[in-house]
């Protein structure tokens, strides 16, 4: 019996015992004005430009506001901006800020703050870097107006300023935003709907946010990062819980109100508790992946990569990750997030239908594979990578490959995957990961789909066709054009096997029933969330 089995059994028993009980524990009794939230991970740093982890982005969205915000239909909407103008040639953008915007220190938000903030953000963001590459000038015209002059049009400007992918273009006071983007800020002053209580921050354990009473929300209904960010509680406490069974028990016991990411094993227990609601948290989900190293044999030959695609069963991967809950996964014959406006699975046939192991073996033999070890990095401390790694090892063995299974931790994978040395000399042949669906809707923030050789993400795929079609997407001017471009990117990326998608999966979120207003989305949105006693 392993630790996971024990905790599942005990948490399950606890859930059954609690069903129907509503009496509070001794430890309960926190004010209805305080929302206690268990985040997906520890808030170890709090600079959303310097550190790009999702948990930092999620916390930062409370403290810092953005010029535009992406809404649930994936459209950029004005947030801090009152109006914008662009010249006919699309090269000059002029933006005007809403009146009355204030930072948490009482100072007004000025155009110079925006200019400094955008400069710092653009130095670290893939889309920002694209803008910098064609930038002529970014200047404050007056206190509320700023201008971005480009050498050529950039049709995705508003999307870049609105996107929820980390790093988001959060606006900070100029004195803070002037910090080197590769160094951490030390002041956490924003103009968002909540203030960060730095004095109560215990990294690894607790972070506290207090309502910013001078915040002026927009009048529109809140929708993801757009609209009126009405905060209904005085205080939000983030309580970090490394152990999922403890988080489950604390939620059942009423010691916390909302658990962002319950693990699949414990969801049945939570669903049985009449005081708890469970639902899909982020409809954009995640895409499982493993990347093959395009620099070294056997995967420097596209036939070897295709052989792996032909043989892999996405169902095996998904069941290993989410278990038996069929509502949590679907096959994904491509690289882009399903059920989104521009989704297209053109060219995905190789991932569909019955798996043809014999044909895959034949193709692998044609690639010249002759039994050399395949170094497969598998982080054991991340349940998703561990589950995928086990399936891959089995798959490769079925294909007749000699697997060098390197069981290690995520920190080591993160470091070793950057090595371009041969697999036997500290390098690697494959590693596992996953990508947030929100990052995989289009190529905008989708680093993993890039195939520009040395400049590409780990594995360094070199597929000129894929790159050409990605450029086509950036130049697209309508949704139809974008959708067609996405189809072409998908086809090219599958033909050259930029990486191997292992399927699309979702995760749940869970909260006490006295909490209401929780919206589905790619991050936990606290505006509109209220709590009764």
């Amino acid at each position, binding site marked *: 019996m392993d*630790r996971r089995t*024990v*905790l599942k059994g*005990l*948490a399950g028993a*606890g859930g059954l*015992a*609690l069903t129907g*009980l509503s*009496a509070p*524990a*001794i*430890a309960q009794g926190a004010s209805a004005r305080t929302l206690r939230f268990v985040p997906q991970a*520890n808030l*170890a*740093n709090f*600079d959303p430009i310097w*550190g*790009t982890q999702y948990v930092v982005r999620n916390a930062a969205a409370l403290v810092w506001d953005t010029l535009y915000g992406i809404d649930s239909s994936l459209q950029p909407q004005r947030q801090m901006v009152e109006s914008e103008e662009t010249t006919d040639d699309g090269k000059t953008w002029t933006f005007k800020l809403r009146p009355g915007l204030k930072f948490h220190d009482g100072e007004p938000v000025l155009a110079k703050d925006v200019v400094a903030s955008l400069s710092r953000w653009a130095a*670290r*963001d*893939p889309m920002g870097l694209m803008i910098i590459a064609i930038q002529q000038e970014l200047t404050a015209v007056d206190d509320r107006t700023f201008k971005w002059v480009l050498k050529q049009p950039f049709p995705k400007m508003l999307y870049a300023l609105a996107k929820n992918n*980390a*790093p988001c273009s959060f606006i900070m006071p100029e004195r803070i935003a002037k910090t*080197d983007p*590769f*160094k*951490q800020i*030390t002041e956490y002053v924003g103009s968002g709907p909540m203030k960060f209580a730095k004095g109560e921050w*215990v*990294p*690894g*354990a*607790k972070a506290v946010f207090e309502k910013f009473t001078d915040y002026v929300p927009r009048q529109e209904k809140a929708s993801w990062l757009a609209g009126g960010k009405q905060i209904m509680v005085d205080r939000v406490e983030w*309580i*970090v*819980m*490394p*152990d999922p*069974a*403890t988080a489950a*028990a*604390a939620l*059942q*016991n009423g*010691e916390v109100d909302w658990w962002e990411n319950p693990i699949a094993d414990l969801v049945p227990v939570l669903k049985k508790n009449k005081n708890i609601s469970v639902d899909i948290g982020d409809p954009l989900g995640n895409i499982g992946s493993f990347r093959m190293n395009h620099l070294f044999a056997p995967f420097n030959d596209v036939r070897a990569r295709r052989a792996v695609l032909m043989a892999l069963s996405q169902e095996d991967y998904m069941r290993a990750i989410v278990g038996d809950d069929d509502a949590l996964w679907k096959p994904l014959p491509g690289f882009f997030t399903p059920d989104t406006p521009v989704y297209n699975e053109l060219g995905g046939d190789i991932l569909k239908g019955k798996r043809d192991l014999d044909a895959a073996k034949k193709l692998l033999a044609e690639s010249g594979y002759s039994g050399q070890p395949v170094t497969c990095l598998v982080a054991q*401390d991340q349940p998703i990578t561990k589950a995928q790694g086990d399936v891959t090892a089995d798959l490769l063995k079925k294909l007749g490959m000699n697997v060098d299974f390197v069981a*290690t931790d*995520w*920190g*080591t994978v*993160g*470091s*070793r995957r*950057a090595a371009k040395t041969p697999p036997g000399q500290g390098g690697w042949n494959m590693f596992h*990961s996953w990508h947030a669906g929100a990052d995989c809707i289009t190529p905008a923030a989708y*680093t*993993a789909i890039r195939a520009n050789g040395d*400049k590409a*993400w780990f594995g360094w795929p070199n597929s000129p066709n894929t790159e050409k079609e990605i450029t086509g997407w950036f130049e697209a001017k309508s949704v139809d054009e974008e959708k067609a471009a996405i189809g072409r990117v998908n086809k090219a990326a599958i033909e050259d096997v930029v990486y191997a998608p292992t399927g699309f999966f979702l995760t749940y979120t869970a909260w006490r029933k006295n909490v209401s207003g929780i919206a589905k989305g790619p991050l936990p949105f606290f505006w509109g969330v209220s709590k009764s006693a």
Partner: protein
Amino acid sequence: MLSYILRRIVATLPVMAIVALFVFSLLYIAPGDPAVVIAGDQASPEDVERIRQSLGLDRPFLVQFGSWVWRILHGDLGTSIFTNLPVSAMIGQRLGPTLSLMIVTLLLTIVVAVPLGVVAAWKAGSLIDRVIMGFAVFGFSLPVFVVGYMLAYIFALELEWLPVQGYTPLSSGFWPWLENLILPAIALGCVYIALVARITRAAMLEVLQQDYIRTAKAKGLGQGGILFIHALKNAAVPIVTVIGIGIALLIGGAVVTESVFAIPGLGRLTIDAILRRDYPVIQGIVLLFSFVYVLVNLMIDVIYTLVDPRIRY
């Protein structure tokens, strides 16, 4: 005695220096790179390199080590790579919960384990002895996390007597402080109680065979007086030794216990720092733990002289 204590304290300095060099070297050669973790998945190799440079991780080993030692000599444990907070402040934030947990566990152990061991020795070979030793084997065999989950299930979820998780500082009141520590202390103390009870029993058995115990019995002294005044005092040296050694056991166990009960202590800080390769934090904590361990050993040596006047330094 005072000169002995001073000599021992001075002798800890080379030990600490060796620990420091060992820890620093180990972290230097260990795989993993905090710059990669900080930069995130979107970062280019150039971004990672710039972060590495800004953190000073690109400097040669000896330069990094020298600079670290220099800071330590000035009482500066450095700054966390991730939180940008001073390591001393981070340790300070976490010291209270871990110290509280260890003190409550230690007290619980002494109060429970020593009498159990004495009674087991007194009733050696009887059913009581076998039951007590059976419990000791059971406690020794159960992993801390299993005991933790069972306790949380019974006393927090089922009976709703105590909270599942968290920590309340003593400044918020004695009971709020204690109620968060009862379950973790029992979970952590199980192994420790088992160990101390077994050692107490063994030490007492040996002492109870001595002539002076027979003499005490012949003089008509009461059983309690014989056991707890004459016998226990003479059996105290190995018991004190194992209690001291057990503090290392507590430090290790605290890592798991703090995770299971979501206590924001040094154990969790250690794990987080290791997983993220937050070198300054790891180095600071290891130095602290090694110092504590050396100090505990020194205290044990001093206690020896109190429980056994024959011991002289």
